[in-house]
């Protein structure tokens, strides 16, 4: 069952096409990673599904309800953390958290205290004195102490230190284990890799790739490092082998996943001394899509 469904979403600002025919969905109980370069349309998409911006065309449904017309009903079961958290300078963090939780309609004081402690936040300080990371903590505490069914997180960790990032990841795993859904937009690919079941990549207002990480890895190449007794010949004649480089005792190269079997059979004839293979990282995927349309010559160092 889909908690969030985006169908043929198009959004224009004047003549500028911010989003064009965007399609994706987030299923119940899954963490969906939403990645893409700056200005690709991540935040615009999120703002449409929050009912802050109105879709020019297409359908956005959250919990089966229209994101614009039934925004208030939807928001009763949704928690949102923006990437750039602007707060009121003369309210304290504690006051803002209470306000946010109350405006959603819930109240979970027990969780609030626990999270404030976990995130190491001083709720008696005025927001004016908070750093970016601390303002983000305020939004995160407010979001995770709400009892929501869908968490929409727009680059929520850009200001957090590695320790707090781990606390954040725990929070996400925690809500996931309770069967809640999460839409996580992020630039930190290791985080997405660690947390997300499925990923959508958006570029210039269009979703160019989506699916589970495993599915997407099929589309990419495995890194191979191999040392052999005799030097390998004729490897370049195979389809799907790229970036062959000689090292001291052997070769490194990348191979398309569907050609892996043939290539390994060929290589094994030369007497393998050492074989290392690394799965493609999300960064490889990311780079491949971001660096324009050059299909060949993607250099990575997985």
């Amino acid at each position: 069952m889909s908690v969030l469904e985006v169908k043929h979403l198009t959004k224009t600002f004047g003549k500028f096409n911010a989003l064009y025919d965007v399609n994706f969905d987030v299923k119940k109980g899954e963490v969906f990673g939403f990645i893409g370069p700056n200005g690709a349309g991540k935040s615009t998409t999120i703002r449409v599904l929050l009912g802050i911006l109105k879709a020019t065309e297409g359908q956005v449904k959250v919990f089966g309800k229209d994101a614009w017309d039934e925004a208030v009903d939807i928001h009763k079961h949704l928690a949102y953390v923006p990437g750039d958290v602007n707060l009121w300078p003369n309210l304290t963090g504690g006051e803002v958290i209470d306000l946010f939780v109350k405006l959603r309609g819930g109240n979970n004081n027990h969780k609030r205290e626990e999270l404030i402690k976990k995130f190491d936040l001083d709720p008696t300080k005025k927001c004016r004195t908070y750093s970016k990371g601390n303002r983000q903590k305020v939004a995160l505490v407010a979001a995770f102490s709400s009892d929501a069914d869908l968490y929409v997180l727009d680059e929520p960790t850009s200001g957090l230190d590695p320790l707090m990032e781990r606390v954040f990841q725990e929070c996400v795993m925690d809500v996931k284990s309770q069967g809640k859904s999460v839409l996580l937009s992020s630039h930190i690919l290791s985080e997405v890799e660690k947390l997300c079941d499925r990923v959508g990549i958006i570029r210039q207002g269009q979703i160019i790739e989506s699916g589970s990480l495993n599915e997407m890895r099929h589309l990419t190449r495995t890194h191979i490092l191999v040392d052999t007794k005799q030097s390998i010949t004729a490897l370049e004649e195979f389809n799907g082998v790229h970036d062959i480089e000689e090292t001291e005792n052997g070769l490194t190269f990348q191979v398309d996943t569907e050609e892996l079997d043939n290539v390994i059979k060929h290589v094994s004839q030369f007497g393998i001394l050492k074989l290392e293979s690394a799965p493609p990282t999300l960064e490889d995927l990311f780079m491949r899509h971001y660096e324009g349309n050059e299909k060949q010559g993607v250099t990575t160092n997985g």
Partner: protein
Amino acid sequence: MADQVLANTGRLARFIFRLDRIRIALWLIGLVIFTIIIPPAFDNLYKTQAERDAITETMANPAMTAMFGPGDLNHYTTGAMTAHQMVLMTAVIVGIMAILLMARHTRADEEDGRIEMIRALPSGRLSYLNASLVVTSATFIGLALFTGFGLYALGIESLDLEGSLLYGATLGGTGLVFAGVTAVFAQLSESSRGTIGWSTAVLLIAYLLRAITDVSNESLSWLSPLGWVSKAEIYSSNQWLPVLLMLAVSIILMVVSNYLNSIRDLGQGFIASKPGKKYASRFLQSPFGLAFRLQRTGFISWAIGLFVLGASYGSIFGDFETFFGDNEMYEQMLVQAEGASLVEQFIPTLMIVIALIATIPPVIAMNKLRGEEKKERLEHILTRAVSRTKLMGSYFVLAVINAFVMISLSALGLWSAGTSVMEEGLEFGMIYSAAIVYFPAMVAMIGIAILLNGFLPRMTHLVWLYFIYSFFVLYLGNMFQFPDWVGQLSPFGHIPQLPIEDAAFMPLFVLSIIAVGIIILGFIGFNKRDLQN
């Protein structure tokens, strides 16, 4: 050593001046013009010594002394009159100018992290503070000279050279004192808000202390720097001692600020910012509570301001009767409506001004919604279970309450001061109905702000253009004899002028209907549009 802590001060001073040249120029031009247009106006208004002596009678009471300070009422020349009625008020404005200019380049720059970058460059620890002290001091020396020679250049007999220079020096000196006060608080307080707040509090206390002591025991007024302004006795005995005192105090304050700056860490203060509330009060936990909380300080300040405005208008009613009462010619000129007293004739003219000024805070309150949107804070509210109608409605209700409180308080101020100075007193109902009748027009102005927010969110400030139009045509309308329709383009032009006109129900009803229509339209627009920064 001095090389180390003050390195590059000159360069930084030039840099600060470069940043603020237009701001400083505008302040100086504004203040100098404000000062030098007054004496010719007085000279024109009160042509003979006899006329000036007549006005001293209305000046010789505690209320006036509290407001303007003591003056040389026995030799009330144009100069003495200018000094008496103007110099203290101008000094207060100069004090505010000093606070704002000084806070900008001390604590505000520090809070925003700019001083950190300057400090990382080869500049001394105390360079930036002293650079801003240099720029501010130069500004006030300039103010002293421009004002002094400007007044002398008017060529009015009683404005002699010494008095004029003393006038300028007093203003400049006040500026230096409050620049010093601000420089000290910039070290003590941890935020620029705190710096401005504490310094303004000192300014207010200085003014109040002076007001109380001027009325009760004049020698105690020496305790207040604003008391020194009157002690200079400009254009009468020309005392320079107060100016010397100002210089001494400002130098001491500046030295103290340097000392405090040298013993503290960057970003720290001495007044510990007290921890705030850990939990939100029940009241804060709604869009309405939040909207009020965000505007609370402004709301209270405006409320006090409007009460004082009403009261200061009311306080002239007593003199009004004595001034015009004996003069049959004035009486014949003014009396048009039968049975209306002089004061009653005067009230509609007064009320339109009061009502227009009382419209400013509610319109600000309404436009705050757009301000919050620009700062990307509405997202926090709207991504929770709050509808747009509820959100805008909260700000709207608050603005309407604001309008009601403001117009009511100014009427109360007018009545309470008026009735205490008039022999036969004033009827509260008469004053209040003349004021509250403007309420529908005020709501209509709020409606315009809502309409703009709904459909032209980037142009919500256009409401101020409409406001200025209203002010212009209605305040100056009588003078310029505009045709009626010019005034009627403003909601304020449709309000019956109580008490000399009858309270006509129809125009108020129609105006209210139109206002409601505009408001509904604005709500629809706000519900349909994207949020935008």
